């Protein structure tokens, strides 16, 4: 019986153990590649995203945060990305002479949080989004709403457990509590 209970506890905690943190440095693809599903292994897909590689773009005004690769909002603004597994604690580095607004959306398209970033050119600045609830989508809007004035680098996010996993976790905890209560009654 004890073995079964231990297994139940381990199973219920496994989503926490599997939660991953990813950092995309955008160094993997050739310049001018449209980035869409190339990072599916990292549970993320992109829209209006194009790979740039310094020095083959205006890296003086839009320097990479690391390495030589960045993403830009092309062919249209805004640059967007969706997560296959909900995430939390999202951050990245942007350059934009007009400033950016980053909006995080939940499962139902509901706005979970917003970040407003000041204009930055010739350097980069960090944006962070860590609202309550798992983030499913983020759009990064250039304040001029014109493509080609924004770059993004070193995007970091942490996956959160899915609802099913949370249910499993809850069941496990409840089972553990029940077992403990039975032991106490004895």
């Amino acid at each position: 019986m004890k073995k079964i209970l231990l297994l139940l506890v381990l199973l219920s905690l496994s989503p926490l153990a599997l939660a991953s943190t990813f950092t995309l440095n955008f160094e993997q693809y050739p310049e001018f590649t449209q980035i869409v599903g190339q990072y599916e292994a990292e549970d993320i897909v992109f829209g209006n995203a194009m790979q740039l590689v310094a020095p083959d773009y205006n890296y003086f005004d839009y320097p990479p945060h690391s390495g030589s690769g960045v993403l830009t909002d092309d062919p249209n603004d805004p640059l967007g990305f969706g997560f296959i597994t909900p995430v939390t604690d999202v951050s990245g580095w942007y350059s934009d002479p007009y400033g950016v607004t980053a909006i995080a959306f939940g499962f139902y398209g509901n706005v979970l949080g917003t970040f407003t970033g000041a204009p930055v050119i010739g350097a980069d600045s960090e944006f962070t989004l860590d609202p309550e609830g798992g983030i499913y989508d983020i759009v990064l809007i250039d304040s001029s709403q014109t493509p080609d004035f924004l770059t993004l680098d070193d995007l970091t996010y942490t996956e959160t457990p899915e609802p099913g996993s949370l249910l499993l976790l809850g069941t496990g905890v409840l089972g553990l509590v029940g077992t403990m209560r039975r032991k106490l009654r004895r």
Partner: protein
Amino acid sequence: MICSNKAVARFLAVAAFALSASFAAQAQTKPLLVTHRIDDNDRVTLSGNTRPEANSKNDIGLADDDTQLDHMLLLLQRPPALEAQLEQFIDNLHNPKSASFHKWIGAAQFGATYGPAQSDINAVTAWLESQGLTVNLVYSNNMFIDFSGTAGQVAAAFHTEFHNYQVNGETYFANSRDPQIPVALAGVVKGVLYMHNFKPKALHQRIKQAHIDARSGAFQTEYTPGNNTLPIVPWDLQKIYNIAPLLSAGISGQGMKIVVVEDTNQWNCNPTNTVGPCSSTTSDWAVFRNILGLGRYTAGSFSEENPGPLTTNTCTKPSTGGGYPAGSGINGDDSEATIDAEWATAAAPSAAIINAACANPRGGFGGLTAIQNILNHPNADHVDVISMSYGESEELTGATLNAAFNSTFQQAVAAGIGIFVSSGDEDAASSDGGGSTCAGGFPGSGCAKDGITISGWMSSPYDVSVGGLDFADTYLGVNSTYWNAANNIFYGSAKSYIMEQPWNDSCAGGLLSTFLTGSPVAYGSSGFCNTPTGENFLLAVGGSGGPSACATGAVTVRGVDGGTCAGWAKPTYQSAYLGTMAGLKNDGVRDTPDVSLMAANGLWGHYYVLCYTDTTPTGVSSGGIPSCTAVPPSAWAGFGGTSISSPIMAAIQALVVQHKGSLQGNPNPRYYALANAEYGPNGSAACNSANGNGVSSSCIFYDVTLGDNLANCQAHSGGTKYNCYLPSGLIGVLSTDNNSFQPAYLTGTGWDFGSGIGSVNAYNLVMSY
């Protein structure tokens, strides 16, 4: 069904016979031009074929008789009635109501139908050979014969002499008097090319030092790279002239071939200095494309060709000169070649750009040989459009070379190929080539002294003459309305179409004068050109335009319209709209330019950037910089000139051809028809360029109504004034009348000499063509 080889052979033989019989039948109807026995002692002079510089003042003695003259060209002429038939045929090719509409013909059919009779050609080649000359090739068009010989042989054949001449510190080689031919050949021989080595002018200008600061509006005597200038990058070009929606729609030049005609190979194109694809990813062309956002159009390509016809190679690698690597085929015109290649790809980034260059024959422009070889290649080498950025005035070019370009362009448009040529960078004073030094103590200045002249390389009715404009936002003080404060990832910052004015660096320009003095009056002792500030702008530099005046005949004064000169007749596409399209001149001659695009070199802060890393032979002062990746484009080489607007317009036309799916020939008939519909007799207020970002979104052309291409002038040596209004002071302004100010020229409603039809909305042009 089984089809035996024998049957196929029989069919092909019959077909070939039918074709040749058809050509022969056409040829048989031609009147013969050589009708008498050739008597070498009975000669006629081919007038207008001596360079004005070939005079006793410059003469430093006879040239060596043993000097080899390779690939000279004898230009033939067709009977007048056949010439008229050809002109009508070309009109029909461009008339949608004609049964011949767009039924283009290749070189062989062109030669058989519109060349002189074969017996006439045989008579000419036999005569050349009888003079000891070697006939290398009779081109398929039957209009040009390539021949070679020594200077002594050529001089004896044409009853002239070759001398060396010292002009402005340079030594030239030229015939001392007009060539002569036997009278019996006079009907079929138009002239001889090239009997001199005076080179044409590459039509670009480096950044102008004295300028108006684009942000502050202050006058500055020196240019500082990146300091408050508004350099144009491809992203800006695509935004301003509305090319971007075409690229987004997938019309970016895929499958199109754009030839830029040069007399040099490219700098830094191919490390092995061999002709072919520009394989180096670190080449200037590739770096330009990648840094400025064109690299995403992966179908785009660039190659060098030294094109030759299939039989005899009349094209050799361009001559190396001025300290360039031996055997590289690179010479001092490589900046021009770079400009053409980089800015053609800026407008049609998926097109194949071809640098077509041949060695300059001993005296001459190898680019003409390159065009000839392309056109006379079977299928014209599948070229869609050709751009040429060289020029010289009709008066200096001479009747034979003027005719040679006209004949070449006739053949091109008959084959469906569009020809684009720079209108010139000398305002309406092409003979002065930017201006002869102004008398009265103005070192480094330039004044128009030869009167109103235009380039003979673009005045043919069979090419699109592309003029030069500038943006008027600095003059109007509205920079921030039209340019973002920051550059984007491809260094672009333009917000929209920007109002335009003719590109004009001269103090005579009314806008510059008004901006700095409050008055547009530049002539007279108190006029702007006669002030200390005005002295900084003593230049006859700006977008050229004017009437054809000396395409044929000969001048009596070097570079000056007169003598027996006459212009090309007004083409149908201009004469047809007299009275229905505002601005067209009822002057009986071909008027230029046809269309114009931005071509400024920094006077108001606008110029084109160029990735050009040639610092040979005189270091960075030659225009290049060592690296395009280490510094932003604002620190790259900067240029202006109609040599940039021409390849851009050719590339836009390539987008037209791509969208239409077939060759379009001479674009002018369609351009003028569209402009006539848009402007009408009173012009179009909605399409007036002065509206700037308020211009109607449906405009195909933008009518430039602000500014002028007036040049400052002085009297010719000897004191005679030619088209110069100079009431007092040392400097006057170009005028059609010496005694009253009749400006040459202002912009106005509809067509004008300052801008032609105007500039374009590329998307609307392509969709409406």
